[in-house]
């Protein structure tokens, strides 16, 4: 566990450096770090004003948003897997993705009413995501009395409804709108700014803290609902709090960066292979691992085909799948 923690934190530090240093405009790592240190009142920066702007107005907010998105999606995925006791659960299980997709489509496609401006996209995506989760919760028997499988099925139904509504809107829209929606669906950090960081930061901080704090409860829940209750766990209340935190945090992230797949499902599994099945270990490591993973993936996304960018969702899958397979085979070798 200690080794995994050290390696993960080192990867996180490396991801931060990569996020600041690597980009189409070559700026030496030492000079970038010198500039960072100068902001702490130590030494003098050797960067030109343009280079400083690139670092602080383009790369830094993008890197920070990547850290927040990766951390939130990974911890939400791990939390969902624990609450639903389902290894295939991801943060989009209860309709967050479909709701956000519909909201973003409404904003991007010109429906009149002045909604099709870029500033409406995150707001409507966030609203759509939250509406979808709340509708799922209500349909699923308000989640408190219902079983988790009822909630999952309600999520499937709501996602289908929202996705088909989105498809209908796209069918009625122009090819240009379809292309913009498609780009949004694939997820990107390209439009990251300090204002988008400020917007999601409070949600992510609060939700990540709640999810990580739920580790002990999720360990108890691994024995099933009835047994957990007999052990003293207020299962229904815990489930409500944890799902609300995961969904709210995910909705905030999705509204800012679009739909980034794979992180929420694959990072918790990689972490589980490394640290075992206890959520007290999985959740904090997932936060750091997810953050590092997404910043590395974004660095690849924006440099491999520079000046154009690869969709972030594509990179997370292309990078994540082999990493998962390698960890899985290493783990098997260790076990045998």
């Amino acid at each position, binding site marked *: 566990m200690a080794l995994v923690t050290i390696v993960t934190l080192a990867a996180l530090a490396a991801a931060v450096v990569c996020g600041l240093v690597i980009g189409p405009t070559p700026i030496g790592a030492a000079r970038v770090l010198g500039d960072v240190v100068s902001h702490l009142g130590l030494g003098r920066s050797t960067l030109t004003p343009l280079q400083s702007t690139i670092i602080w107005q383009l790369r830094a907010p993008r890197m920070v948003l990547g850290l927040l998105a990766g951390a939130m999606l990974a911890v939400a995925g791990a939390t969902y897997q624990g609450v639903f006791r389902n290894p295939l659960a991801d943060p989009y299980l209860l309709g967050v993705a479909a709701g956000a997709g519909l909201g973003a489509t409404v904003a991007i496609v010109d429906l009149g009413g002045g909604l099709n401006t870029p500033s409406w996209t995150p707001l409507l995506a966030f609203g759509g995501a939250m509406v979808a989760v709340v509708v799922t919760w209500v349909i699923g028997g308000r989640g408190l009395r219902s079983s988790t499988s009822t909630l999952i099925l309600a999520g499937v139904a709501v996602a289908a409804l929202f996705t088909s509504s989105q498809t209908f809107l796209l069918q009625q829209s122009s090819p240009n709108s379809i292309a913009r929606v498609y780009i949004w669906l694939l997820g990107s950090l390209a439009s990251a700014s300090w204002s988008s960081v400020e917007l999601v930061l409070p949600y992510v901080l609060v939700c990540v803290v709640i999810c990580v*704090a*739920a580790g*002990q409860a999720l360990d108890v829940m691994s024995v099933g609902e009835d*047994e957990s209750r*007999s052990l*003293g766990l207020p299962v229904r209340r815990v489930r409500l709090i944890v799902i609300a935190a995961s969904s709210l945090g995910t909705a905030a992230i999705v509204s800012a960066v679009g739909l980034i797949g794979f992180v929420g499902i694959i990072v918790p599994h990689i972490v589980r292979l490394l640290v075992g*099945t*206890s959520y007290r270990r999985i959740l904090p490591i997932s936060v750091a691992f997810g953050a590092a993973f997404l910043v590395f993936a974004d660095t690849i996304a924006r440099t491999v085909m520079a000046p154009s960018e690869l969709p972030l969702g594509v990179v997370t899958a292309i990078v994540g799948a082999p990493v998962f397979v390698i960890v899985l085979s290493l783990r098997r070798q260790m076990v045998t």
Partner: protein
Amino acid sequence: MSTVELHNLSVRAGSTTLISDVSLDVEAGTWCTIIGPNGAGKTTLVETAAGLRRPWKGSVSISGEPVGSMSERERAKRVALVPQHPTVPAGMSVRDYVALGRTAYHGLLRAPSALDRRTVDTVLTRLSLEEFSHRDVFTLSGGERQRMVLARALAQSTMVMVLDEPITGLDLRHQITILELLQKEVHECGLTVLATLHDLTLAGQFADRLVLLDHGRVVLDGPSDEVVRSEELEACYGMRLRVVDVDGADVVIPVRH
């Protein structure tokens, strides 16, 4: 003094009545076993007594306090449950599994206290599980696993333990081991046991009292030796039973037609 009191208890699932007007008092430090054919309502009865099901009518009290008005945490400090098919999460160590029994004491945001850790150590020792304590629960045999589930229930440090078919799937030696461990807790620690068992011989040999349940109603309630020799028992199971005395112990043998 009664520790567990079921008062005019009725339980329904939808429109089906599973338990009908059952009243039962289990004295502190005694062992009461519910017997009866499949579908008699044994599991429903003990699950309701453990607070996992809401009664349709009537009430369940532990030491005079209604189970329905207790929080999960309060209830877990008063009654422990050994389910018929416990969920055993792969990857968890035996020690961590047994420590789940202390959840109600340390809560969800605090680490286990020294007392919690000491209690877990004591229980592991008492049930001879120390040598397995760091093993993955999934690597245990059926008997070891059942001992571990019992250890988790004992770690709850409750006065009452509810067990639903605790020896299902175990070989004869492990059946006796589990029941003897439980009997020791009853005799030495004053534990009150409410259990269900299918094996009439073992039910009769270990319980102070047997309650015969059929179609959700109590058919007979009395000392074990009287219930195993009763006509009602044969009527409920719909077959002849012969009771043979072997070294002072009643052995119930089904007689084939």
